[in-house]
């Protein structure tokens, strides 16, 4: 007797299905159309932050820090 769970193909449509299987794959396409899954949101957030952080980690370019230092030494009141 096997105890391993198998995909139940007999469940009628409209039954209380989980939103995704163990791999995070959406089981109910209609639901994911309406609301973005947590998995997808997490992946987008991850890519967005990684892209952003890559630039943040470059720090302050020398010409920018030079500019800020120069401007902050000037008499403010001109312009």
């Amino acid at each position, binding site marked *: 007797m096997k105890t391993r769970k198998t995909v139940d193909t007999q469940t009628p449509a409209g039954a209380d299905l989980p939103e995704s299987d163990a*791999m*995070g*794959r*959406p089981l109910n396409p209609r639901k*994911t159309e309406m609301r*973005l*899954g947590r998995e*997808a*949101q997490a*992946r*987008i*957030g*991850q*890519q*967005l*932050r*990684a*892209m*952003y*952080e*890559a*630039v*943040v*980690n*470059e*720090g*302050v*370019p020398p010409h*920018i*820090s030079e*500019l*800020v*230092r120069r*401007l*902050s*030494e*000037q*008499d*403010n*009141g001109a*312009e």
Partner: protein
Amino acid sequence: MKLDPAIRDQVLGAVPSLRAFAISLCGNIDRADDLVQETLLRALAHIDSFEPGTNMPAWLFTILRNLFRSEYRKRRREVEDADGRYAETLKSHPEQTGRVEFSEFRAALAKLPPDQREALILVGASGFSYEDAAAICGCAVGTIKSRVNRARTRLADLLAIDSVDDFGPDRATRAVLAGGGRS
């Protein structure tokens, strides 16, 4: 009167994130650096209008965002298909957009309407609250929330992130996962 060093350091401290925001907005490093420089020139010329103790990054982001918007509107008058040209720039010069491994993601980001793009970056990457993002963009908090949601949904669509067939990690995702443990 010279600038208070504490204020100067606050300005410098915001620069890395300000650059990342600028590059995400316009997709081109040269344009982004011009935008950052012009933002800093304006900010320091009008530093008296900054209230000490308030949010320096938000103040600088607001200036940069407004500069970008006025430039964008100008370009739009000049070139009808501003977004299309922007996407072309990304395609022909991927090395100009920062890290090459994010070119696919940047290309998708470039296809979003500017309102949605800036809202998503401010909240999802810069780490501003919905309230701060709303103040930076000069709109209601609810508007920011709905823009962020629409941006996420559209990006998922463009990157085919929800598709079952495409679930296996692609190159871009592997790069992200490999380098993602830093923050």
